[in-house]
């Protein structure tokens, strides 16, 4: 996802001199091509994420479209108030990019696990929140937020799911139906789509037919797709490499409740309000916290088998 983001940004920067990239001293070797081609559109702000966001706001207010870049929670939580008061409140064209959603940097420890950022960022007014599930969606999301006025959050993952059918245009706020089934609606966001697709395959072997939805945009969200999903499936499952408190699961439940479309059966898969203080790779941590393909399939089967 990261490489596709940078490739796309190179393309955007070439066409639009307003585009700027500011990094908080992270992205070793990642920006070589970008820096070489667009030295006037690149700033390393040093290890100072608060100032990075403030500078981005000031430059955006002067007409630039500024991407701030760091990993994990550094470009979001570390400078949250700057994103809220300065970027978002002023409608500044600041695009906050975090590489390493969820357990992407698994073995580095909880400081590097971004497991609350969706909940926190989506609560900010006037911030568009995008969490692509695949490389194709990463490119589309990058182009979309560059066009979208105001402050945006782009959450990128180390892992990526399959692109799916890319003939339909990507629209911010409109979930993509990646697979159509009958029994279960699997709604996911971020690179953990890779596990969800495998889980859907496993369920198929048990005779359970699943639809898979990419919830690439967290905010805004056109409710129609998920309302239809809730009405046409026996069970709605949300899967996120993130806390289930206020994240995708919360978003989907809130939206369905508001639309009068709460499903009888619902399952939220994600971190259940704990720190992920276990050492291991992204795959190991997904397994530990029961959000790997096997766990998703098993928990979905169990939920279907339980009484509504």
């Amino acid at each position: 996802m990261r490489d596709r983001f940078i490739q796309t940004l190179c393309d955007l920067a070439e066409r639009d001199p307003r585009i700027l990239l500011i990094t908080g001293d992270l992205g070793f070797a990642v920006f070589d091509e970008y820096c070489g081609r667009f030295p006037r559109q690149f700033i390393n702000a040093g290890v100072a994420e608060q100032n990075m966001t403030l500078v981005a706001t000031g430059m955006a207010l002067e007409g630039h479209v500024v991407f701030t870049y760091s990993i994990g929670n550094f470009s979001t939580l570390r400078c949250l108030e700057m994103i809220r008061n300065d970027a978002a409140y002023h409608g500044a064209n600041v695009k906050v990019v975090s590489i390493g959603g969820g357990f992407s940097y698994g073995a580095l420890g909880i400081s590097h696990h971004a497991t609350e950022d969706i909940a926190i960022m989506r609560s900010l007014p006037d911030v568009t929140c995008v969490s692509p599930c695949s490389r194709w969606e990463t490119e589309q999301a990058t182009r979309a937020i560059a066009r979208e006025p105001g402050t945006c959050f782009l959450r990128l993952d180390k892992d990526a799911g399959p692109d799916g059918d890319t003939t339909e245009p990507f629209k911010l706020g409109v979930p993509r139906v990646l697979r159509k089934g009958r029994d279960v609606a699997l709604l996911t966001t971020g690179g953990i789509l890779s596990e969800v697709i495998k889980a859907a395959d496993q369920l198929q072997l048990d005779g359970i037919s699943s639809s898979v939805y990419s919830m690439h945009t967290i905010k805004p969200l056109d409710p129609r797709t998920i309302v239809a999903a809730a009405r046409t499936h026996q069970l709605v499952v949300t899967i996120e490499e993130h806390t289930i408190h206020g994240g995708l699961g919360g978003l989907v439940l809130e939206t369905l409740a508001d639309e009068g479309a709460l499903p009888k059966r619902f399952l939220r898969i994600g971190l259940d309000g704990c720190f992920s203080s276990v050492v291991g790779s992204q795959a190991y941590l997904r397994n530990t916290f029961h959000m790997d393909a096997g766990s998703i399939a098993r928990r979905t089967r169990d939920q279907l088998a339980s009484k509504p």
Partner: protein
Amino acid sequence: MSQSKAVVTKALAKKVRKHVLAMTERGNSSHVGSAFSIVDILAVLYSDIMRYDPNRPDWTERDRFILSKGHAGAAVYATLAEAGFFPVELLKQHCRDGAVLSGHISHKGIPGVELSTGSLGHGLGVGVGMAKALKLAGRSSRVFVLLSDGECDEGAIWEAALFAQHHQLDNLVAIVDYNKIQSLAPVAETLALEPFRQKWESFNWCVIEAEGHDHGQMQTALSRIPIRPGRPTVLIAHTIKGKGVSFMENTVLWHYRTARGDEFDRALRELEESS
């Protein structure tokens, strides 16, 4: 400063102090001491230093001003109104239900305000970003950011200070309202800033100092920007919290207290009688 300009600046400061007193009393708001502290700095900036056009608040060639110590917003609102950005009448709505003029400065619907602040430590970094963008665009506009001394406790100020010198932003001027009293106690008893001048110097900024209520001194200091090409400038303005009303001066109390009744009358009398 010419004699006629000195008269104009003095008259502006006097009007603004009277507005601030009335605004805080009517709006039942605080920070009158913090506002009085910066009135003379604003008067010099808006009468003699900054390029602006109240009829074109978005004029691209304007100088930018950011009040980073947003709690003193009443003084900026009053200065902008007197400078012609919006009707003086609007000041009566300060902090009232449904008003646009909030206690901490807001840009929403208020021409002339570049940035909403209130949480300390934000203004300098945004000003730095503006200054960097203005340089890239080849514009001659300057960026003035007014900070409080207590605000310099915030780490973000020093992140911005590092960035500004690294990027040689000589179109940036930070002005520190150094009244030496913060929210609960004197600065020296809270988190000592001294040696303050040396801190900025060690960050590679050009440092100038002036009496923050001496219009001529500040005008002279601010007319020489940039003092050294390639360096951002900080003006350490030695001020008196509550300046202009004897019983408010140099007290912690008037950071939060609102003048009412007899206190209001006495304060107004002193302001009116001041030369």
